[in-house]
Each structure stands twice: as structure tokens, then as C-alpha cells.
């Protein structure tokens, strides 16, 4: 949420990663994260290899490291949680710099940090190399219920419109000398939220009228049919397959 606008997420480019069909990338990222999550946490070297794999993909996609790292900040709340673990988990204690921590807690913290970070990094690469529109079409290709994809499309289409309305209401409030400073002002803010809901709902009704006026009967016409070639699939699947090999190694070693 903290990342602000939706269209700032995508980095325009013409790399091989950008060119892959969205549904291939979605499958690849999901399988990759699943493999990462299933890797035993003791195989620290495996996580290093995963990170190297992601770095390679990011390099091919020409995503600057700074961009990627900044986007990783999203997981900070859970980093805090992970940092607490060594202190609250019972078990064998170890002393680091004079502070007593539990060994299983440290393992737990490492586990969450490593897997969470890899998951976030994979998603960030996906979002920065795939346009919103293709992501939605990709989800549709992957047999997500069409109604859900439609709802998501409308949410994306009108997310900015409604956020803008919210911003205009805030400007209108401030122009009349109102500055929300504490709990006392929640009533005013909630009235804005209520008004925003009414506007959103009424816009939904108007959009529905506009759709019905152009022949909508419950299903979206399929206009773009994205298909993936065997070669594209094999490129996309390379990431999770390599990861799977690493994971299996992690289990056997």
C-alpha cells in the first residue's frame, strides 16, 4: 500500500523478461516462491543460490538494484516480527554480543527473513516487468474465474479515479481550514469516507448503465487472445525448475 500509484510499479522496457506472456511469468513466479517456501531453512546456501537466480533475472530484465531494493521495504513490518523471535521463542539459548537469544528463534527469524525477502523480490520483478493489463489477461488465461478478473479490472481502472476523488475531498477540506490532527477529527474524515463510498457506488451504477448500453450481458467479450509458444514457456519455467533442483539438493544434502 505504501508504494503509492499503480502505474509507477511498472518499468517500461523491451527485455526478454518483459516480452514473456504474463501467464507464463505468473506461473513461474508462483512456482518459484512455492519451491522457496518448501526449502529447509538449514540449507542457507540454497537461499543464496535463489537470490543469485533472482538477481540474474533482474539483470536480464534490466531492473536497477536500487529500484528492487527500495521496493523490498514493503516487508518491514514483518522484519520487526522476525527480529522479535529470538527473544520470545523458548529453547536452547546462545549469547550474541552479551544478549541471550534462542537458537530456534534465530532459525525462525532467518527462515522468515530469507523466504519473505525472496518472495517479495520475485513479486517485484513480476510487477515491474509486466503491464497491469497483461497481468489481468494472464490471470484470465490461468482460469481465474472471469468474474474475479472483471472485478479486478474495474478496481484497477477506477482505483486512480477514486483516489483522485479522495485527494480532491482532502484539498477541499484543507482549503476551508480543516487539518485533521487527532481522534477528535475522525468524524469529519469518516464523513469523507462515507461520501467516497456513495460516489464510488453511484459511479459503479453509472458504469453499469454505460456497459449495458453497449450490449453487456454479464461476460466480457474476449478481445485479445494471448498465447504462449513452447519456447516462451520453457524460458519462463527455467526459473522455478532451477530453483526446484536447488531445493531437492537442499533436501538431500
Amino acid at each position, binding site marked *: 500500500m505504501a508504494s503509492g500509484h499503480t502505474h509507477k510499479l511498472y518499468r517500461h522496457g523491451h527485455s526478454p523478461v518483459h516480452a514473456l506472456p504474463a501467464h507464463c511469468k505468473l506461473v513461474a513466479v508462483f512456482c518459484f516462491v512455492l519451491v522457496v*517456501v518448501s526449502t529447509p531453512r538449514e540449507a542457507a546456501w540454497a537461499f543464496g543460490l535463489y537470490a543469485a537466480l533472482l538477481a540474474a533475472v533482474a539483470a536480464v530484465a534490466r531492473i536497477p538494484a536500487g529500484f528492487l531494493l527500495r521496493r523490498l521495504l514493503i*516487508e518491514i513490518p514483518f522484519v520487526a516480527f522476525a527480529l522479535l523471535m529470538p527473544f520470545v521463542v*523458548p529453547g536452547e539459548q546462545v549469547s550474541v554480543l552479551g544478549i541471550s537469544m534462542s537458537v530456534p528463534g534465530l532459525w525462525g527469524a532467518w527462515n522468515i527473513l530469507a523466504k519473505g525477502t*525472496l518472495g517479495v523480490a520475485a513479486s517485484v520483478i513480476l510487477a515491474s516487468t509486466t503491464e497491469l493489463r497483461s497481468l489481468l489477461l494472464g490471470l484470465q488465461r490461468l482460469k481465474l474465474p472471469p468474474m474475479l478478473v472483471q*472485478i479486478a479490472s*474495474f*478496481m484497477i481502472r477506477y482505483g486512480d479515479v477514486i483516489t483522485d476523488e479522495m485527494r480532491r475531498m482532502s484539498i477541499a477540506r484543507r482549503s476551508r481550514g480543516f487539518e485533521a490532527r487527532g481522534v477528535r477529527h475522525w468524524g469529519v474524515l469518516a*464523513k469523507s469516507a*462515507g461520501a467516497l463510498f456513495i460516489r*464510488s457506488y453511484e459511479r459503479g451504477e453509472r458504469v453499469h448503465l454505460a456497459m449495458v448500453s453497449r450490449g453487456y450481458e454479464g461476460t466480457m467479450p474476449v478481445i485479445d487472445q494471448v498465447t504462449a509458444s513452447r519456447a516462451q514457456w520453457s524460458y519462463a519455467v527455467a526459473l522455478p525448475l532451477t530453483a526446484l533442483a536447488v531445493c531437492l539438493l537442499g533436501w538431500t544434502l
Partner: protein
Amino acid sequence: MHVPDGFINAPVSVAAGVTAAGAVAVSLRGARRELGGSAVALVGAERTAPLAGLVAAFIFAVQMLNFPVAAGTSGHLLGGALAAILVGPYTGVLCIAVVLLMQGILFADGGLTALGVNITVMGVVTVVVAYALFRGLVKVLPRTRRSITVASFVAALASVPAAAGAFTLIYAIGGTTNVPVGKVLTAMVGVHVLIGIGEAVITMLTVGAVVAVRPDLVYGARGLTTPLKLRVGGELVDAEPAATAPVAARSPKKLWATGLVTALALAGVASFYASASPDGLEKVAADQGIDRHVAEHAAAGSPLADYGVKDVSDARISGGLAGVIGVGATVVAGSGVFYAVRRRRTDEPASAPVRETV
């Protein structure tokens, strides 16, 4: 509190994913009815997509609206209870699920493998708890606007710690680190009661603001409107009752249905766990030792520890059928499952090293 990847182990994440998918599938059917009520005569066509989409965009936007608390800190709305009260439970679940899906894919906020957990906890549990409480209170309290706001407050207040409780339950079954569940529960519920107060005040004020202007748009308050008349050529004709009557007639059934779905879903998670062998994936480090597990097992010597998984899930189903989906029930039954499961888990690793030493 979007759960990232690696927090919950793979089998439980998948089970939660199945639960969430089931809940979304049920909601897709239910939302069609909730949003179908239209004053427009010939339209008849599907209104779910544009309306739910716009409400999802609203939830997305309102989560960005900062409510200053004091001295530079501020809170924001989670929106589950608000969505349930404003547009109905099914649409509420759908909207929250779509918001979470988009946050996961676009913002990497919440792990992709944890999507099921996030939707189950933040979408399904908050919405079901909030809506069940809300409808219950609206039925009991006098039919006034004040009751609507009071009910919104209570519903939103309970929904947040309920979600925290549900998260703790999932963590207890499939958490990747064995934090003692009592501590997690205390911390999670404790913190979230505080968050819940904020959520409750904001939800109550927002619902109040909408009820004051467009009471017809508040799904939970539809019983308050009076039937309409139509005037054609000077004659008064009864307007077709636009979804006011059916709601009242349907709501007990809906309560039962949601209860059943929740119970089945939770039972599904439990039985999935029972049939899977998570220990293989979990592979607790050998040095973590038998002692700790034995110690925990001893600590788990409550009457609940004697429950088998099967018995507990039956108890859940019957509990769900009774329509009691309150926070307490969820937490109590949840910890029952936890204890039973924990016992199984402790038994198996305990026996495995023994074989090795032999």
C-alpha cells in the same frame, strides 16, 4: 498485517488457499444476489462486476486514508467489517479478496503463497464475524439508525481480534517457527483489540455517514426502508419490492450457510493437516531436541489435549451449524485443533529419533 511468504509452511498455505478459493467461489454466487437488487426495470443484466469492482477500488482507496491518532501517529482502516456492512458479506469477501490479490501481485504486499492465508484471515474471517454479529445485533436492537451504528461498532471491534485469533490458529497449525501459541495469541489478540477499537470507531462513523445520506445503499440496513409506490398516469401502483423483503427472509439461511462454510473450511484445514505429513517438510532441526517437545506436551496437558482431530472437526461443524461464529468459539475450537495437532506432531518426532538410537 499481510502475511509474507515463508511464515506459514507449504501444506497449510495450500490448504488455506483451497479454503479461500472455496469462499471466493461461494461469494461469487452470493454477490450476484446482493448486488442484483435494482430499481431499473429492464436491465436485469449482471451488475456484480462494475459494482464490486468500484467497491473494491473504494476499499483500496480508503485503506490509504490516514486517521491521525496523536503525535504524528496514524491508523487506517482494514475495511472488512465496513465492506460487509455496506455491501453485504459475499460482496465484502469478494472485494477484500480482489484487493489482497492485487496487493500481492502488484505491490508484493503479502506473499503469493500466503495469499490463501491472507484472504482467509483478512477477508473471510473479518467479514463473516462482522456480518454475523452485525445482523444479530440489528435483529435484537430496536429498528433505528442508532442501532445500526452501535451494531457497526461492535461488529468491527470484534472482527479485528477475530482475524488475529484466526491467524494464530493457522500459525499454530502451520507456523514455520514454534513460538508458544499462548504468547502469540496474547500478543496478537492484545494488539488487535487496540487496533479493533480504531477500526470500530472509523467503521461506525463511516457507516453512520452513509446511513444519514443514502440509507438504501447500506446493505445491512435494508430492513429500515419502507416499501415504495409507483405513480402512473395519476394512479398509485405498488412498486415491485426491490430486494427489501427477500433480504429479511433470507438472512437466517445466509447465517447458517456462512456458518457451515466456515466450519467446513476449518474442518477441511484440520483434516488436510491430519492426512498430510508436515513433519517431512518441517524437518525440525535435530538439536531442537526432544526435551522441548516433551516439555510442551506436558504443558499441553489440558482436557482439550485429549481431543482427536476428527472429534474436534465434528464439534466445529456442529458449532458452525448452530450459527455461533463468535470470536470466543473460533478461538476455543481453534486452540482445540491446535492442541490435538500439536500432540500428533510431538508424538511422531519423539518416536523417530528413538528408532535412530536403537
